[in-house]
């Protein structure tokens, strides 16, 4: 097989992976909804807490998608995406607490859902805009960028721990009652939030696919591989980076906003540097620069985490670290890379 036909197959594969991912997501979502609707005594019935757990996975998948967009396609390793996720989460948390008892007078404005919804994307978006503008303009790249993103999320964690912020201090925001007038405790709310998360993942996946397949997406990949060359053909690399970084932060913010009502709490631990690193491990495991790899990685790792933390909670970090080492050493393209290779082998054989 010539390399030219291989390339064509690769782009076909890319098309096909979009289809397969979309179908799997839709069918999976429908299946969960249907299984939940079965009578409780049925053996296959999914109860509300499982639906909520799956909904939480979906928000993690959305966050992983955001990280893959900038890391996989633009080569920017952000170790602070948890901060954008947390900001979106706090915006949702403020909305939910403002329904009954806002912690500070200014927070009453957050009781209006449209205002809160704007804050969910604008807060992370603005932070990314300012931070990215400073970093990309002074051409901070590589490991230096990664380190300052860690510093960013760490600084925010310290800030949100302070009671003066009126964000609930180290306890964070919790004890939520209602979302858009419906009780959060109801089973149908679990399903609604699950479906909303699934739809968000699907839309973000298509959106990211569209961006990465556009000419801008090719400029991103070119920047990842040969940044100076891109400048010399006239693209303003810092603007490209900034735009995609802000988009990615907004997606992360939406993920955080969907996460909070499902877990019922948001506190400064979401800003913890370690959480942001975990997200990167999900993407590395699933495979970079494929988008579906990030979705897969987030789902698999978090499922494993749920299984393992129930049995032996102390072992989880070691397993995660071990997985990361194994993947970087033996599977640099992650699970998605293995899948692509298997497919190619089958096609060659056929």
């Amino acid at each position, binding site marked *: 097989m010539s390399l030219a036909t291989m390339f064509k197959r690769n782009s076909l594969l890319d098309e096909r992976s979009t289809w397969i991912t979309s179908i799997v997501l839709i069918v999976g979502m429908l299946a969960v909804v249907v299984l939940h609707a079965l009578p409780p005594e049925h053996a296959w019935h999914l109860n509300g807490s499982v639906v909520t757990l799956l909904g939480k996975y979906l928000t993690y998948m959305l966050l992983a998608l955001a990280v893959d967009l900038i890391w996989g396609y633009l080569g920017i390793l952000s170790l602070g995406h948890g901060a954008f996720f947390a900001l979106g989460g706090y915006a949702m948390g403020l909305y939910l607490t403002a329904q009954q008892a806002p912690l500070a007078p200014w927070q009453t404005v957050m009781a209006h859902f449209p205002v809160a919804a704007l804050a969910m994307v604008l807060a992370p978006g603005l932070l990314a805009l300012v931070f990215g503008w400073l970093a990309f303009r002074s051409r901070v790249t590589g490991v230096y960028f990664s380190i300052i993103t860690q510093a960013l999320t760490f600084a925010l964690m310290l800030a949100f721990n302070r009671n003066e912020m009126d964000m609930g201090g180290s306890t964070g925001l919790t004890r939520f009652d209602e979302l858009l007038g419906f009780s959060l405790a109801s089973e149908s709310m679990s399903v609604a939030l699950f479906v909303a998360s699934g739809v968000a993942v699907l839309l973000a996946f298509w959106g990211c696919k569209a961006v990465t397949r556009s000419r801008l997406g090719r400029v991103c990949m070119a920047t990842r591989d*040969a940044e*100076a*060359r891109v400048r*010399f053909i*006239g693209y303003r690399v810092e*603007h490209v980076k900034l735009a995609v970084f802000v988009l990615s932060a907004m997606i992360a913010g939406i993920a955080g906003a969907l996460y909070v009502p499902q877990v019922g709490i948001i506190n400064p631990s979401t800003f913890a540097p370690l959480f942001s690193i975990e997200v990167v491990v999900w993407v590395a495991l699933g495979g970079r620069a494929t988008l579906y790899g990030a979705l897969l990685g987030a789902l698999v790792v978090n499922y494993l985490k749920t299984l393992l933390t129930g049995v032996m909670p102390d072992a989880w970090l070691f397993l995660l670290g071990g997985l990361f080492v194994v993947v970087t050493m033996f599977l640099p393209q992650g699970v998605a890379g293995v899948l692509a290779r298997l497919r190619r082998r089958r096609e060659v054989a056929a």
Partner: protein
Amino acid sequence: MSMTNVERLREFARPDRVFDFMAPADSPVDVRHGPILYLEDVSVSFDGFKAIDDLNLTIDDGELRCIIGPNGAGKTTMMDIITGKTRPDRGQAWFGSRHNLLQMDEPQIANLGIGRKFQKPTVFEALSVSANLELAMVGDRRVWKTLLARLDHEGRERIDEIMETIGLSAERDRLAGVLSHGQKQWLEIGMLLMQRPRLLLVDEPVAGMTEPEMHRTAELMTRLAGQQSVVVVEHDMGFVRSIARTVTVLDQGSVLAEGSMDEVANDPRVIEVYLGGDEASDVREET
């Protein structure tokens, strides 16, 4: 000073100097009063080492200039200065008579019409040959426009045409990363052509090329000159001789000699510089 008043008035009132819109179309570069590229007393040092030392260089519109010089003479550094990658410590750099290159950054300079080929061929390896050319194609480089950009019929034809010129038509869908070294050189030249620059800076274009490929490159460079200005840095003396009109010899960051190939090759200072070096025999062999 001997101009009469009438002459002075006529000179002052020449329409093409009074009205900007009478300047040559489709380029913001003003070359009516002289050269397209003008470097004066440019110096730059890295940690105390003077890589460029009082360099003066003038390239005329439409000229094909070859620049030779031993390793470390500062040829690549000179291109870095022109394209905005390196800021000189002192000196002037002008593109036409209107654009001060020292006040602009890389994308601005590129969009003004200075294209550059790197010494080490640099193409976008994860993209196909045609995608490489598409990215280099002149157009609106703003983020939003790039996101919505679609390759139109004209653009597709231009890509086909350039692919024909650089002999890569059969490779259009191959990833640039799998091309041979010579093909990558050609692809990078093709990307330069897609940019339609006014001034091409070409750093060692024939390194790694076979003899026939080299001939084709020489032919292309000569063809380009006239419409565009071309500055070629090259170590291969056979190649330089085959295209050179004016040759500039750089040594230790400044111009050592300038003139036709024969003039510089017989210049005792040039021979001195090349003596002992690998290129020494090359220069004289050709004379």
